[in-house]
């Protein structure tokens, strides 16, 4: 691949993720293809076939089987990864809850894509939101570089003794998975050293064998569940520690939230994923004209970094929360999370955008900042919706 003096290559988010997997050298990777995730496992499969990594690749007959195999492998002590998207994640969700409940630290790349129907292959966060309450850690990348960096960080979060949970690393379908851009890969040994070796704390075999997947009646289920909830809560600090270690080592800090030009901002947008990059360009343009606007990009979605959001939005006046998913019948997920934990004085407004890959142009983002100068709207606004006034009822 093309390397310049600065060490950049031109890679898609999917390819960069496959490189991270190659460098991490997972023991087992069960796979089943689905657009727009397929380039991840396709590229990784090529690495395996070419002998560049000696992972056991399990080609199974569905995503349900892929996740089931991943749980089995992880509980047997293997460092386990997989990848999916959309309907594939939907099919995995049943087993993803089991992975979290059994504390199986499976790392999964997700090429975030709309859910059917209508069938659609393009990006939104509906699939991730379906997995929202599974108990898995969930992070979202803005671009190919972040998709790579978060994937390298993921095993240390998943396998941390206080966590032991699945980690989903999301990247927007097509706009990141299939968009080739400048990516700086770490050296293989740097990744291996950062990730370290893994030993399951409760092995199935050996001197102190354990049983896994046992029946838990009303006398035990509740306690197990609360411990699992606490493990996910603990993942917030573990994420912060791993992000700090990554930054110290490699110079790129991926915090739970990223505040962009929030100093003195009167109006702000909060969102998740690749549109953050587009919004940064708009913030720069408006700031040049003297408008006091800023952006908060949310990378860590589960556990939800309430305090980090509280801090990021401490002094702003008006905030538009942009969700690339809906929660029909109630408020959209990111907005609901922020509103639930927010004690500041900012006025929060809800927008939905980009469903099914609808393009979100800089002009759409600029429109939201203009809207924020106007009196509050009731309910949810649908950004970029064709043919109507974009008002909805909530």
């Amino acid at each position, binding site marked *: 691949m093309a390397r310049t003096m600065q060490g950049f290559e031109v890679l898609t988010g999917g390819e960069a993720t496959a490189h991270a997997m190659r460098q991490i050298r997972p023991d087992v990777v069960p796979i089943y293809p689905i657009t727009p995730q397929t380039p991840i496992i396709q590229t990784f499969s090529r690495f395996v076939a070419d002998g560049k990594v000696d992972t056991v690749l399990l080609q199974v007959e569905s995503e349900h089987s892929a996740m089931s195999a991943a749980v089995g492998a992880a509980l047997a002590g293997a460092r386990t990864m997989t990848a999916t998207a959309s309907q594939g994640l939907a099919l995995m969700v049943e087993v993803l809850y089991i992975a979290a409940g059994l504390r199986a630290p499976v790392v999964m790349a997700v090429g975030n894509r709309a859910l059917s129907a209508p069938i659609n292959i393009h990006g939104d966060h509906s699939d991730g939101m379906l997995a929202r309450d599974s108990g898995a850690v969930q992070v979202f990348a803005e671009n190919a570089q972040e998709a790579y960096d978060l994937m390298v960080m993921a095993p240390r979060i998943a396998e941390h003794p206080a966590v032991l949970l699945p980690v989903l690393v999301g990247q927007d379908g097509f706009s990141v998975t299939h968009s*080739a851009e400048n990516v700086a890969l770490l050296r293989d040994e740097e990744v291996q050293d950062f990730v370290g070796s893994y030993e399951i704390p409760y092995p199935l075999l050996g001197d102190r064998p354990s049983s896994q997947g046992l029946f838990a009646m009303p006398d035990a289920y509740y306690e197990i569940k609360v411990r699992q909830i606490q493990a996910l809560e603990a993942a917030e600090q573990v994420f912060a520690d791993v992000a700090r270690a990554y930054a110290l080592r490699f110079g790129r800090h991926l915090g739970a939230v990223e505040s962009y030009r929030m100093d003195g901002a009167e109006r702000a947008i909060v969102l998740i994923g690749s549109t953050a990059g587009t919004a940064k360009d708009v913030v720069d343009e408006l700031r040049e004209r003297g408008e006091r606007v800023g952006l908060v990009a949310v990378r860590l979605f589960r556990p939800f970094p309430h305090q980090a959001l509280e801090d990021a939005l401490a002094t702003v006046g008006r905030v538009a929360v942009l969700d690339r998913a809906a929660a029909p019948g109630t408020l959209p997920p990111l907005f609901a999370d922020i509103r639930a934990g927010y004690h500041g004085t900012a006025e929060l407004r809800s927008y939905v955008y980009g469903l099914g890959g609808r393009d979100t142009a800089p002009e759409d983002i600029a429109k939201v900042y203009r809207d924020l100068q106007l009196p509050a709207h009731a309910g949810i606004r649908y950004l970029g919706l064709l043919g109507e006034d974009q008002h909805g009822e909530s």
Partner: protein
Amino acid sequence: MIEVRWHGRGGQGAKTASHVLAVAYLKEDKSVQAFPEYGPERSGAPMLAYTRVDDRPIRRHCAVTQPDIVVVLDPSLTREVPVTSGLKAEGKLLLNVVADSEAEEAVRTYPGKVLGVTADQLAKEAGTRFPNVVLLGAYAGWVGAPSLDHLQEALIEVMGHLPAKAKDASVRAMAAGYAAGERGRADV
């Protein structure tokens, strides 16, 4: 930022061209982005791909709606697809033409610069059937960047899996395109 839109037919190499151009610009220390527009992909159906180039990091992840440069890989596309849609008036339109008059006919309302290159013919003479490499060369010759060396290095890297004979033909075709592009630049 330069935004380039590639018009091709499925299988003609528009996506590859968008990628090779990005890799070549990376060699000149640019920030780049290359992506195709995905739909129901079918061999022979019109498709689009894009390349973005900038001196500063490229952060946006949205569609290219007002390209600076449009490259059309198939001569018949100008009659089927509005290839100049959104193309900046001060931009450039690079066409694969069978005869120069046909290019002028299809896009005569476009006020910017237009260059027609007989890419199919030049490709055939170089021993390949792919016009994309000729047009990549023509792009660089006409626009003035990236250099032919960087473009050919990028091509060899991206086409690494092809047999040496095919790579050699592509490199020759690219050089022929570059010369045609340079002539176009001299004419303006």
